[in-house]
């Protein structure tokens, strides 16, 4: 596997401008000769599809939902960062770049992050022009707030639904192009394989989820904007349909998968109510400004009504361990501390997974009306889900899987090591290193789709020339046969267990051994149990119904089958990365006060995994990371 990041020469401030000036272009009259396949219609996919279509390329866009407007970008609440410096509080492109590299614990590629910060300002301009109703001040100008990991106010927001509003902006631009006939939209289609012709990505095999037909699509290039793999844990804040299949199929066709062990665990989610739980819901991190986190000091108090537990019998463990940051300790630290308290037998919720977030002190100090004004909608949401009134009794919270920083490896042009295969948004690995800062996912998705890919994809197209292959060529025959063979196999087993039950079991293994805290012994155990579970799946799964027509269980079985393979690669990566960094915490590598201890000598690199055959250990390749602008430092919360 050849990994050339293709980072342009020159000072970091000039790389992107120089690069744009040097790439090849396609003449406007020739663009209609090219066909681009885009898989996914979230922020990255929709914005890329709309922009390429505006330029004159023919675009086919695929999504598994019934409408492109429903992609999971829609669920993002908090906001989107941009270095506009509207508050004149010292923000700049450089500072956003610096915060992102540092927040990523020095495991992101500098040049990509700098470009992200540069493009952030254009995103806001574009979204406002589309009619995105951002929050405004009385003067009519855009409002900003601050977010974790930054000392400036640079986060733009639209109430608690920023993701929805940005997605609807991209969806409207996409809809316009669909109306003009420049984009062909295929809803309820799922990509099941990537087709390579002479080593270049030239098509996909997709299943029409309504008719059940397996279809062949060819193009001059393939763009994956298919999101993250958080659902490998079964329970996460992701939507039910989020899956790794498209990215994993590309990996099996030769694309390198980078840093799969980097996952982000959000500390404040509503805990599991029981074994019937299907997903976890996030509660905004802002609650920790006024809430105090605690568990009882004694395990026998855990079942008691929290309001009768005396002050001296409570362990405000964040305040105890991190006196200067207290309840506002960073995401990874807070998450791990909750796990430690629960592992110590002091959980206050089902299954040993829950701690209190208590507002009684804040209510006594400020009054209920102030708390209601600040967090009313969150308390309402909490009550809707749990049935509890958090003004009267402490909230129960627990960390949950939220975002995955790893993804398919891409170069500076967002092209994977497979020529013609581009990867955008959460599906790629490039910008967040080992930990993503809040309000940066939306920024990356839109930067990739609106501003990066439309400048880099044409260069590839111009170099290879127009001429997509016939869908009747041999590589398509072969890929379709393999997809159909796999589906037939899934349908023919007719065992005793549902795909969902396997998914739940896999999730438990991953959460236990490859979750918030990992260690060598646990990962080795996971690496024994995952192949065994996978084998059982292929012996005993039961997929009801037919291949023809809508069959959600067949869709699920295919996705679970891929998660069962992918999980193993994730554990290999977590085991190999014998250091702690960002969201990847190896218990063997921590400072005395429990902070992640990086090993820059050995691990200042991207780990890129190459598929070597089913069930075989993937082969590791390395892209070294060079820091010319930001120097290694330890993140400190003192």
């Amino acid at each position, binding site marked *: 596997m050849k990994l050339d990041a293709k980072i342009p020469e020159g000072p970091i401030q000039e790389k992107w401008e120089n690069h744009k000036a040097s790439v090849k272009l396609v003449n406007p009259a020739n663009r209609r000769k090219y066909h681009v396949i885009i898989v996914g219609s979230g922020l990255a996919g929709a914005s890329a599809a709309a922009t390429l279509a505006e330029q004159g390329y023919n675009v086919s866009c695929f999504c598994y939902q019934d409408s492109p407007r429903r992609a999971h970008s829609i669920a993002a609440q908090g906001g989107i960062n941009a270095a506009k410096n509207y508050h004149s509080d010292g923000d700049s492109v450089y500072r956003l770049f610096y915060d992102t590299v540092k927040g990523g614990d020095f495991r992101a590629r500098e040049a990509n992050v700098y470009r992200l910060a540069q493009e952030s300002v254009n995103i806001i301009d574009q979204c406002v022009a589309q009619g995105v109703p951002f929050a405004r001040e009385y003067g009519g100008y855009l409002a900003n707030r601050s977010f974790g990991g930054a000392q400036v106010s640079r986060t733009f927001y639209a109430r608690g639904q920023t993701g929805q509003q940005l997605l609807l902006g991209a969806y409207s631009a996409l809809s316009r192009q669909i109306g003009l006939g420049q984009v062909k939209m295929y809803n309820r289609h799922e990509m099941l394989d990537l087709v390579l012709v002479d080593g270049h990505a030239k098509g996909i095999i997709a299943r029409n989820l309504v008719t059940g037909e397996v279809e062949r699509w060819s193009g001059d290039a393939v763009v994956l904007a298919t999101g993250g793999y958080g659902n490998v844990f079964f329970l996460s804040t992701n939507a039910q349909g989020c899956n790794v299949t498209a990215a994993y199929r590309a990996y099996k066709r030769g694309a390198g998968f980078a840093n799969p062990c980097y996952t982000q665990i959000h500390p404040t989610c509503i805990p599991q109510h029981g074994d019937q739980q299907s997903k976890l819901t996030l509660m905004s991190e802002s609650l920790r400004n006024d809430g105090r986190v605690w568990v009882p000091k004694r395990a026998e108090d855990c079942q008691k009504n929290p309001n009768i537990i005396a002050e001296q019998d409570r362990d405000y463990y964040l305040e105890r361990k991190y006196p200067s940051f207290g309840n506002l300790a960073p995401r990874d630290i807070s998450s791990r501390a909750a796990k430690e308290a629960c592992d110590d037998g002091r959980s206050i919720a089902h299954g040993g997974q829950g701690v209190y977030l208590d507002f009684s002190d804040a209510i006594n100090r400020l009054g209920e009306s102030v708390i209601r004004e600040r967090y009313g909608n969150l308390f309402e949401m909490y009550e809707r889900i749990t049935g509890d009134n958090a003004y009267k009794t402490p909230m129960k919270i627990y960390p949950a899987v939220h975002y995955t920083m790893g993804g398919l490896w891409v170069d500076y042009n967002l092209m994977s090591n497979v020529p013609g295969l581009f990867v955008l948004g959460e599906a790629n690995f490039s910008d967040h290193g080992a930990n993503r800062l809040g309000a940066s996912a939306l920024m990356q998705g839109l930067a990739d789709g609106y*501003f990066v890919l439309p400048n880099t994809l044409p260069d590839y197209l111009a170099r290879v020339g127009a001429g997509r292959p016939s869908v009747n060529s041999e590589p398509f025959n072969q890929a379709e046969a393999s997809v159909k063979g796999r589906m037939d196999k899934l349908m023919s087993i007719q065992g005793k267990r549902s795909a969902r039950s396997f998914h739940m079991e896999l999730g438990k293994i991953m959460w236990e051994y490859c979750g918030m805290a990992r260690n060598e012994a646990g990962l080795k155990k996971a690496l024994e149990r995952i192949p065994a579970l996978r084998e059982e799946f292929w012996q005993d799964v039961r997929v009801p119904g037919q291949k023809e027509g809508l069959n959600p269980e067949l869709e699920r079985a295919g996705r679970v089958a891929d998660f069962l393979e992918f999980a193993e690669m994730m554990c290999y990566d977590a085991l190999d990365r014998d250091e702690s960094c960002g969201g990847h915490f190896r218990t063997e590598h921590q400072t005395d006060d429990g902070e992640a201890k990086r090993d820059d000598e050995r691990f200042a690199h991207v780990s890129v995994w190459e598929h070597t055959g089913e069930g075989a250990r993937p082969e590791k390749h390395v892209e070294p990371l060079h820091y010319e602008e930001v120097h290694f430092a330890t993140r400190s919360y003192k």
Partner: protein
Amino acid sequence: MKLHLKIWRQNSATEKGAFERYTLSDVSADASFLEMLDILNEQLIAENKDPVAFDHDCREGICGMCSLTINGVPHGPERATTACQLHMRHFKDGETIVIEPWRAKPFPVTKDLVVDRTPFDSVMQAGGFVSVRTGASPEANATPVPKPIAEYAMDAAACIGCGACVAACKNASAMLFVGAKVSHLNSLPQGKPEKDRRVVAMVEAMDSAGFGNCRNYAECEAVCPKEISLDVIAQMNRDYASAKIKQFFAPAES
């Protein structure tokens, strides 16, 4: 909890459907409505029967995918709550719950509780956008937008496109959905240049997709999980009338 379910089963758009009865026991009162359906489906798979197909994705009330009519009401009994955010504690032990798909002619049933809502996308493709190319936008703060207008636009933009409004309406009218989009874009300065063109195109697309007319039943407003106000329909009607009058006097301009 023990529950009796009466669920609409229909194999495909062209075949006839019918209600089927199921009984579930041991459902947690803390489970969500869709988790209750997950339990049913696990039970059906164990019995070697075909599970119930239903649409769902984010399960946090924002993607607009879930689309169940529960005891005759789209999204069920709780106000301002999507089916995925509805929890079983709002039902009684031993209760019979009737679950149907959206019932509206423009939304044909694909299978069981899954319907086809692509006519909403068609309306959006006709005019639900501001025609601005990527890169053609001016500096974001160049045009101030008064806060009340921004808030009004945001209220309308909160629509999740679930289609409950259509399902609740005797006429299967989509005017709350279309009105929300028109009000959002037409009220902002960025949407003004295409105001007339937009409303006429979207109303025409809505009519040709087979959605009915508004008769002020206001059922749509009552079931809307995002509490979109009927005012958006009034605004759409005003904008439409004004566009049509302008068109009448100056046909060449639009």
